[in-house]
């Protein structure tokens, strides 16, 4: 008889039955339900939600790069009201914490969004201050510690729910940004959002993406993401959702060993729609083989 492995983790107040969630903007809602039982996930993070509906950027919105993809979706979403009335009921059928990713054009908008989302069925908020694909706000909020403090404080003041702040890797010093978020009252951090990148189509001799620059995600960025988690986990005393190129349980373990409490699967969903489940099973198998009874033992084990 093999011992049970305890995969439960607590992410700044959100109880997760295992450390595996999905990265905002990569999972939709019902779209992956034919492949993944949502009840098996540690949490679900929904697409970036704004006050008003957004059309997003012109196409092409995606471009394949070596072991990665560039995207410039541009926060296309139906707005928070549609989310509350049409999408949230879908998630309420499941027994899984729902984390809503929010993005504002102004500090006030972040606060407003947080207020509106203070409803049953929303387990927490992920504050996106790191989107490289929008003109107003977006990444700009996430590259200056003072702005980070303002945005996070506004959300903190507007909601009693757990606040997760999502950081951009496109900065000189990610630890300084993380510390600013912590000071302003974040309950957890999630990192990383995409790297700012671009590609040129040599046939047309023009930028490949409709919006010129885009966000790089996928396995290509994993080493940068692991480094960010490693740096922040040692400097800031908040739980971390690690993400960036996680395709397999081995990848997820790198993030956990670097200091992540939970991991989010993004681009991998497009490649393997069962990736989340494969990873949950792989984490359990690893623990079993290594004689680990509680996955929390592994958090930050590479430096502890």
């Amino acid at each position, binding site marked *: 008889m093999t011992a049970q492995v305890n995969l439960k983790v607590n992410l700044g107040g959100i109880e997760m039955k295992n450390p595996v969630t999905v990265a905002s903007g*990569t999972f939709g809602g019902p779209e992956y339900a034919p492949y993944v039982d949502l009840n098996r996930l540690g949490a679900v993070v929904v697409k970036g939600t704004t006050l008003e509906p957004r059309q997003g950027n012109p196409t*092409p919105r995606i471009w394949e790069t070596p072991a990665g993809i560039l995207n410039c979706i541009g926060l*296309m979403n139906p707005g928070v009201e549609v989310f509350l009335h049409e999408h949230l009921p879908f998630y309420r059928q499941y027994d899984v914490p729902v984390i809503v990713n929010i993005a504002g054009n102004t500090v006030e908008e972040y606060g407003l969004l947080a207020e509106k989302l203070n409803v049953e069925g929303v387990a927490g908020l992920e504050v996106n201050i790191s989107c490289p694909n929008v003109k107003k706000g977006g990444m700009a909020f996430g590259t200056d510690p003072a702005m980070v403090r303002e945005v996070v404080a506004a959300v903190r003041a507007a909601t009693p729910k757990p606040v997760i702040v999502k950081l951009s890797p496109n900065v000189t010093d990610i630890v300084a940004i993380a510390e600013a978020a912590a000071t302003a009252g974040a309950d957890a951090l999630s990192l990383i959002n995409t790297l700012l990148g671009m590609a040129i189509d040599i046939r047309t001799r023009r930028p490949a993406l409709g919006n010129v620059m885009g966000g790089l995600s996928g396995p290509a960025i994993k080493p940068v993401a692991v480094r960010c988690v490693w740096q922040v986990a040692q400097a800031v005393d908040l739980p971390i959702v690690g993400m960036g190129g996680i395709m397999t349980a081995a990848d997820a373990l790198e993030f956990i060993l670097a200091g992540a409490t939970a991991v989010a699967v993004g681009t991998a969903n497009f490649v393997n729609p069962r990736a989340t489940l494969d990873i949950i099973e792989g984490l359990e198998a690893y623990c079993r083989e290594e004689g680990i009874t509680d996955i929390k033992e592994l958090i930050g084990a590479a430096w502890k």
Partner: protein
Amino acid sequence: MYLEKGKVRAREERGCGYYWLEIESPAVAAAAVPGQFVHVRVGEKESMDPLLRRPISLARIEREKGRIGLLYRVVGRGTKLLSSVCEGAELDLMGPLGRGFTLVEKGKRVAVIGGGIGAAPLFPLVAELVDRGAEVKFFLGAANHSHLQALQPEKMIRGGELVLATDDGSAGFAGRVTDLVRQEIGPFRPDFFYACGPVPMLRAVQQLMAELSVPGELSLEERMGCGVGACLACVCKVRTAEAPFTYRKVCSDGPVFPAGEVLLD
């Protein structure tokens, strides 16, 4: 929608960079309708490059045999890798995906218009329409005789009338397929049409049919991430009452759209 390991049962090199694969994929075949596609993983299983799946239309649907057919043209790395799979190999497929064609009722006259590899999803459509007792005229254009031969239209459809065009006049009508349609459409007076092919062709068909007030459907292509509607990468523009346009997802709202709604720019 299934994630299935399809077994390659036949592989044929058709010339001009066209390939044909027959795949045992019972779950996909059982659920599929014409116009849908599969999202195929190409390359070494554990390799992260290339990363994304490739969308390929169902060019044959054999529900009873549990088989599907893919007809594709090598244009880049992914299709090149796909062209080198061997008989017996396993292909990692997601499907059937997307909204297929709306099938007209028995007795209707329909024009089916394909350009080049765009013919792929039209083959099972023609089969299904013929089975349902529609009167089908299939206009098929290609660059030249060799390209037409690679498509093997005679072999791919059973029933329906096939009318061919080549850009260089090496077979059938000399000129673009849309010119052929324009010439023949008057006497045929279709009730409905279906088209798939390059954007300039779709645009010409859309305009012609609007002039003639014939309703129909277009099958579109866009670069895809997920293939299931989750990533919002593959959008196309459609008309709306409120805004100049709105974006719809080719992978899940389409790839087939009512011709009157689509904005092709």
